[in-house]
């Protein structure tokens, strides 16, 4: 890309956004388009393969991953609205395909993968204008966005551009929300204790919305908040940014 801003990108929706947070996916696509980027959404997207990979079923994970890599043949950035899935494709695909005949092809693909906020800030350097009402939000950093992808404040930088939004820091921001994919159903008690603490910390911020970049965390935190009939809402950062900045 040689420092110039790309004109065209691929968008990978991820299975959780596809099924549970399609508005977040649409919003991510709109944010990219508004930044002057053509967005290609290939047909045939299913899942990055992370659940099977994490559970040790690598052959099954590879079978699925291969079909997904094949959807993105051109040398274009691949943008994901999820830290965890982007981490899988960028960091763990090379492990998964180590020693496989198509390793080189997969590595080339992995090098093109970006998490959405990372791409918006680090590559596109987008500028946002806040059109929304004053609101207080808090930010839950997804473990994989931070530890696999090395996100370093990109989402906070985007939120910081919004003049009417106050960002209240979450105590223990870097502590896992307890999702962990199959962990949440294999060890429901520990996972439940983790998310209970997370929503208590989120509630203590006084914010009205918890933002995150990860479908898994959102589903987990949202489910726990709903079970407590909390007034606190969760929202994917893409949806939040798009709603507050789009012309009405």
């Amino acid at each position, binding site marked *: 890309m040689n420092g110039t801003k790309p004109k065209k990108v691929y968008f990978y929706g991820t299975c959780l956004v596809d099924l549970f947070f*399609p508005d977040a996916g649409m919003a991510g696509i709109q944010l990219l388009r508004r930044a002057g980027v053509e967005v290609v*959404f290939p*047909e045939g997207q299913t899942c990055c393969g992370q659940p099977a990979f994490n559970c*040790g079923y690598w052959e099954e994970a590879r079978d699925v991953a291969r079909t997904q890599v094949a959807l993105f043949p051109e040398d274009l950035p691949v943008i994901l609205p999820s830290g965890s899935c982007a981490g899988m494709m960028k960091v763990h695909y090379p492990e998964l395909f180590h020693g496989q005949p198509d390793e080189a092809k997969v590595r080339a693909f992995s090098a093109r993968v970006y998490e959405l906020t990372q791409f918006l800030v680090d590559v596109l350097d987008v500028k946002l204008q806040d059109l929304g009402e004053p609101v207080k939000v808090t930010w839950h950093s997804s473990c994989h966005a931070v530890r696999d992808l090395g996100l370093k404040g990109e989402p906070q930088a985007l939120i910081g551009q919004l003049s009417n939004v106050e960002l209240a820091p979450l105590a223990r921001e870097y502590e896992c929300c307890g999702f*962990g994919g199959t962990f949440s159903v294999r060890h429901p008690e*520990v996972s439940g204790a983790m*998310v209970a603490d997370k929503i208590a910390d989120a509630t203590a911020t006084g914010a009205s919305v918890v933002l995150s970049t990860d479908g898994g965390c959102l589903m987990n935190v*949202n*489910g726990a908040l709903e079970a407590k009939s909390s007034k606190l809402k969760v929202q994917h950062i893409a949806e939040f940014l798009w709603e507050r900045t789009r012309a009405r």
Partner: protein
Amino acid sequence: MHAEKEIHFRDAAAKALLDPQLRANFRRAMDGLIAKRLAQFPDPRDLQDLRDLSTAIRSRSLLCLPELLEQLEASCAKNGIKVHWAETCEQANQLILGILQAKGAKTLVKGKSMVSEEMHLNAFLESKGIEALESDLGEYIIQLDGETPSHIIMPAIHKNKDQIARQFSQKIKDAKYTEDVDELTAMARKVLRQKFLDADAGLSGVNFAVAETGTLCLVENEGNGRMSTHVPPLHIAVMGLEKVVARLEDVAPLYAILTRSATGQAVSTYFNLITGPRGEGEKDGPQEVHLVILDNGRSRIYADPQLRATLRCIRCGACMNHCPVYTRVGGHAYEAVYPGPIGKILTPQMEGVGVRHDLIHGSSLCGACGEVCPVEIPIPEILVRLRREATHEDMGSTVVGKGTGRTASEDWAWRLWAGVLKRPALYRVATWFATRFGKALPASAPLIRNWTQSRTKPVPARRSLSERMRAEGVSHE
């Protein structure tokens, strides 16, 4: 093929979660330790430099482990330290018993040693009529109650001051009830002081053993390590065979990162460099020093290039301090000598991945452990590797119990999962059904039931993103 007697971490963890006192004790202690460690590393670049150096030292030591161990034995011999090799815990226990019996020793005072916990040495010696008394304050506290350590460096961290006050008033002879920490410590000190003077032998662990000089390094805060190793006429040190480093220079960076990572201390109160028994004309020190080097599965771990990283561990405990699971359930729930993330990768490699399958999955793979590890052990990656080993026999590895965690139902589930997800047309049908009828799935269905213990049931959107993009009719390729 099922593993024999699988130990279920889930059950023990669920039980621990019901104890609010335990949870409060761990949360408070771990939050404190996290803050203290952070204060020791104000500059992340300095921290990374020290981690890189420490990782390199440990990796290099392991690379030439067999040679270093031979060199260590020769150097120790030169210093008058007798080296013994034990392949199993049973052998190590017998060796120690033999050394004690040869000197007619009936009482043993112990500095802190996790390897001796691994060997269940205390119980073994007691069955042979030898008293083994723990002299580390935390170890002393738990020994009074017949408990095992709940943390590798703070063994009694599951108890708070009030609990210890009650315990001392009941278990220590003539003790009065007090919640004053200094008074409590003085009480234990008084008991231990006499034990140090009376003991026939002392036992300690080893933090680092230096091959070139035959030096045994011992890091501690209470002085009990020095007392155990210098007052009694006989000193026996035990170590896992991975603890060796090449040169004395290797120790300084490892020591610097160990104390900072462990307790947030720039230096520990005591740092002992043991180079042999009392020399001629010297006024203190033991007459005999023995070093027992234990394998107990380590050479098998060593044989695997990826799993070998497990042996880089310097036992600082930072991984457990930062672990969201450990913080909530504490150390005993792991039903293992080594709890927390390092225990989660070490225990299954020692005991078998099948019997410990549930433990291997007791992690959200959040990565906090790998992030803070001073020697960069990729704990999450190793966990995933062990999950593969537990369910696949054909990995060509030396892992104990490989394939024995496999179940027909999980196998079937992942085949079905892949069968659908590698066929976009099938996935399209499945998501169509999920979006239309997902609501109808009962909250009591298997797995969903586990999810809804703490959360509402997730309901799919009415139309998936793919469906909406198809309807938009643009940007397809």
